[in-house]
């Protein structure tokens, strides 16, 4: 399966990729985007099976990306990986159609718990 990692921080994209491997998802193909607007282009070109997105990003935030996708009929499974872990943000993410929200700092076990229902 193909996973799109969206984060404006290059180091965080790398840490997310490393954690995916540690969580047992090493066999999946990973593509990257550096903000929501870039992610729209990558999703159109690459058709990922899962989007893991940061929340606060320049150009287009993660929640704006999710709204854009759903408004355009794109139902790709979507989860947040963000420093925004409050209940309010979790409720907003869920209401917008996100499957999960993993708060930074995270562990490989947190990734395993959140992603296994999607990736198996």
């Amino acid at each position, binding site marked *: 399966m193909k996973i799109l990692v969206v984060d404006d*921080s290059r*180091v965080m994209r*790398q840490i997310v990729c490393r954690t995916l491997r540690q969580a047992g998802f090493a066999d999946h193909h990973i593509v990257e985007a550096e903000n929501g607007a870039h992610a729209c282009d990558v999703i159109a070109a690459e058709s990922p099976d899962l989007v893991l997105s940061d929340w*606060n990003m320049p150009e287009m935030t993660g929640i704006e990306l999710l709204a854009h996708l759903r408004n355009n009929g794109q139902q790709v499974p979507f989860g947040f990986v963000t420093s925004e872990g409050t209940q309010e943000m979790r409720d907003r993410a869920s209401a917008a159609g996100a499957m999960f929200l993993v708060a*930074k700092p995270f*562990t490989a076990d947190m990734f395993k718990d959140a992603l296994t229902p999607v990736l198996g």
Partner: protein
Amino acid sequence: MSEMIMLEHRDLEDIVSQVWTSLMDQEPANTAPWDPVASDVVAAGVAISGCWNGWVIVETSQQGALDLASTLFDLPMDEIAPSDLADALGEVANIVGGSVKSTLAGTAQLSLPSVEQGPSTIAGLSEASLQVHAAWHSHPLRISVLDDNSKNMQEQS
């Protein structure tokens, strides 16, 4: 009306410990002195605005920021570009800031991180009431939570 931040020194120590253990695989040593040469300081900060207004700032030495970026990127220090150093320290400030924000009872927004070479230009930082001094890999660390008094006073009036 702006709320008071309920975070205590011990809570900030716990946040710092959790972030460093998770990202850097090593807890920083607490109660280390903060004594770098001012020109050697690198500072990354995020602003919180809403039910509470203020800053969360992470400072270390140039060498500390380089070591931190090297650890996070898993690259030798001589392969770390200045943009990588700013990216890594900014992301650490973002995660500490998100953890501080999660202790607030009301609604607030977290800014994107900004990184400064040299001591932070944010006024009143040295007098921040909530500050953790630590050391990681022998590098000095200072993590501050700074109340934006002027803004909070305006919102209370």
